């Protein structure tokens, strides 16, 4: 049981526990905290997959800015406890077994496709950890149009949020 496998199992369990806590939590703030836990465990998994820059961006942008925005809005709107709903019996008795069945089928087909083989760790076929330099060269040569479009998108989003959230005076 290598250290990589241990880290994967720990972070995987943390992510799934966080996702279940997101669904089962009563207070929205607890759901937000659970989602932050999921994002941090996913960032550790990105580190394990050799994408260090993406892991840092995930924590910096997603967990450190977007989720803070969520928490702010929850606190400003004073979102109280969530009303407990009666989950329909159809969902419980048919949905859950169907979900488990789909998961088992997906696991089976994934294993059949990719098998249990592990990416080679040494030699010519070994994956190289993505360096920031290669990533940025690709971003600014091949993908420069989406880059510029997303910057315009962010500008539009800022303007839209400002206009929408203004109080009618």
């Amino acid at each position, binding site marked *: 049981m290598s250290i990589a496998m241990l880290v994967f199992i720990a972070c995987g369990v943390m992510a799934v526990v966080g996702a279940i806590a*997101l669904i089962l939590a009563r207070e929205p703030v607890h759901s937000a905290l659970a*989602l932050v836990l999921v994002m941090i465990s996913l960032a550790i998994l990105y580190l394990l997959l050799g994408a260090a820059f993406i892991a840092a961006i995930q924590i910096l942008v997603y967990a450190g800015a*977007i989720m803070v925005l969520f928490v702010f809005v929850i606190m400003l709107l004073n979102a109280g406890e969530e009303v407990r709903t009666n989950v329909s019996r159809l969902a419980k008795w048919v949905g859950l077994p169907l979900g488990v069945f789909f998961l088992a089928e997906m696991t089976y087909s994934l294993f059949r496709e990719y098998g249990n083989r592990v990416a080679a760790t040494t030699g010519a076929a070994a994956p190289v950890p993505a360096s920031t330099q290669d990533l940025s060269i690709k971003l600014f040569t091949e993908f420069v149009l989406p880059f510029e479009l997303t910057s315009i998108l*962010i500008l539009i989003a800022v303007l839209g949020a400002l206009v929408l959230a203004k109080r009618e005076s």
Partner: protein
Amino acid sequence: MVPISYYLILSAVLFGLGVVGFVFKRNIITIFMAIELMLNAVNLAFVAFSREFNQLDGLIFVFFVIVVAAAEAAVGLAIVMVIARNRKSLNVEDVNLMKF
């Protein structure tokens, strides 16, 4: 090292849990957070594939998904604030003016 199928199964489980949260929750903000969970699960699949085929395109896509999710969260939460102001409630069932 860890086989790629493990990462893909984890991504599928997280995406499924995100869908469950999206369908069964009543609070608008929690539904929004379930959407973010789905986006995160997809990001994990992209990064795993990028590692498997040793290409950087998956990581570039993840970068753009994160940026677009940021823009979407900003506008979406502004809309949520307007709804909360108008309907005086964060329950998604109370946004029913156009119900037949």
